């Protein structure tokens, strides 16, 4: 589904990704762990197409298409979803308005009909309920005044409504209390654990991986994957730290 090869990327002239190679197949969940500043969020932004992140070498293909050749909104329409480490507040735009605009933009880009008001309301209400977000909250402005945990849950509501093929989730577990972690983890499983979908889960902690069991675990350090393994690698990291393993 996703094939990243020898990816080099820089921001403001500073090289962050240094030859990163990674393949993600349909039906798989890959966890990416690694020390602060290793380039995990950068990888997410480069995949998402954030302006300012310049790819200097390498390639990324998503379902056979050249991902790097597409604008950020086209990548979303093609099925890529980026869960933000720091979700953005948008004063004056309600969650429902935002979500409906997003969903319909994607549908138009794919040549599909727009969703009706009634269907949209049902869908957003159901996704909100599954993730503990009331309609009242969905009517509020996007992330404005939301707590850290509420913002992360809101990312998952968006993912549920948009229903992407590939989700790159950047520390979706940070800032969540124990109960919210369970809700979010279950949400990821419910929305994304499907044979035609895949997840790239960026995290620092084993506790999310206890709920969303990864098929593969990778260690990202200094802008490249330095070690890959199965779920046991995450446990080993938790015991031994990055020092021994990434070195």
């Amino acid at each position, binding site marked *: 589904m996703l094939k990243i090869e020898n990816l080099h990327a820089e921001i403001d002239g500073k090289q962050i990704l240094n030859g990163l190679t990674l393949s993600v197949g349909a039906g798989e969940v890959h966890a990416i762990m690694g020390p602060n500043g290793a380039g995990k969020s950068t990888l997410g932004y480069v995949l998402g197409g954030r302006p300012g992140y310049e790819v200097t070498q390498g390639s990324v293909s998503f379902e056979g298409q050249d991902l790097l050749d597409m604008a*950020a909104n086209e990548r979303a329409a093609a099925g890529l979803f980026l869960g933000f480490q720091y979700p953005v507040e948008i004063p*004056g735009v309600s969650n429902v308005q935002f979500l409906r605009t997003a969903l319909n933009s994607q549908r138009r880009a794919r040549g599909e009909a727009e969703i009706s008001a009634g269907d949209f309301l049902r869908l957003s209400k159901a996704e909100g309920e599954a993730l503990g977000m009331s309609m009242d909250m969905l009517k509020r402005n996007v992330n404005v005044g939301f707590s850290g945990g509420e913002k992360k849950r809101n990312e998952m509501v968006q993912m549920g409504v948009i229903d992407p093929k590939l989700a790159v989730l950047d520390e979706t577990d940070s800032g969540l209390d124990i109960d919210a972690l369970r809700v979010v983890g279950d949400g990821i499983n419910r929305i994304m654990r499907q044979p035609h979908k895949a997840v790239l889960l960026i995290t620092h902690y084993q506790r999310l991986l206890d709920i969303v069991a990864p098929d593969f675990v990778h260690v990202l350090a200094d802008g490249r994957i330095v070690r890959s393994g199965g779920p046991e690698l995450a446990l080993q990291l938790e015991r031994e730290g990055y020092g021994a393993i990434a070195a």
Partner: protein
Amino acid sequence: MLLDLPSTRTEAWRWSDLSALPEIAQRAKSGVVPTALPWIDCGSESPRLVFVDGRYDEARSKAGPIQIGRVLASAPDHALARLAGQQGWSLKLGEGHAAPGLIQIVHLTSGAADHLAAEIVLEADAQASIAETYMGEGWTNRLTVIALAKGARLMLNRRMLGAGGFVSLTDRADVGEGASLTVATLAAGGNDSRVDSQINLSGQTAFAEIGGALLARGRQRHDANLVLRHDAIGGASRQMWRSVADDRATASVAARVEVARGAQKTDGVQSLKGLLLARSATVNLKPELEIFADDVKCAHGATVGELDRNTLFYLASRGIGESEAKALLTQAFVADAIDRIGEEAVREAYATDVINWFSQSSLVPSEVEGRS
């Protein structure tokens, strides 16, 4: 007619460009009236009036309490308003009377220039709501003189939806004791505009709220000039303006609050904000306070910004393309001003006008003319 127009070297006119007016005034009138006029749907059988090229169109109108004819209004000191003449419409309501529903007036110009005056006189505790819509492509020039007696309430809504041309609106208002004047202006068409409102809060505890949203693109220019003068004790005024400019357009607001020596306990709030949708666009904001009383509360602020890059990427990451993101964030930006409109039907009409302004932009490629 020979036009004697102020130049941009005059301080009060430096952000306006009147140079096209002589040419617009020469444009032929087609006299064509579109079958669908932009009436605001307020559910009731309220008065509706149509002026075509400055002439009252009786067949298309239902005047209600509005009278057509000679009007006592003049502003000899104003370069454009002094052309308004003595013909137009008036609304005079006696003590305690309320006008039926929302009075709507459509001013349609099919070309050339037309000048009209209007007079609104509300006796004590009288009430009226008026919505005026300007459309077409000539030059529409209006002078409106307003007098509100004790406890009277007037809501005046103006929508500029012209395909092109120029709209100039000059208001002279006197707000008496405990009276309330609200003026909400929206420029969401293709016309240029110049608005001059001079409002005197002459009675104690008088209230005035003057605000709106100006949207400009291509080489459009909107210029609003407001003077709110507090002459008596305990008055309150609100000015909430949102200016948006794209391409090489200019949207300007100069808003002044004057508090006279005796006007203690005045409460004035002024919020001017600008949004640049392109680096080549211009927003001018000029907030001014002139206070001669010592016990007053006046808050004012003026800021101009661009769309936030983080926000644009967040929207893009959810599939929302640049033009749609612009529209969504601009709607959010002007919502501050539009959400204050009390009447739901008017508020919704304005919100729809803003959305339409964006959908029109994608249909008019010439709007980006001159961009490199």
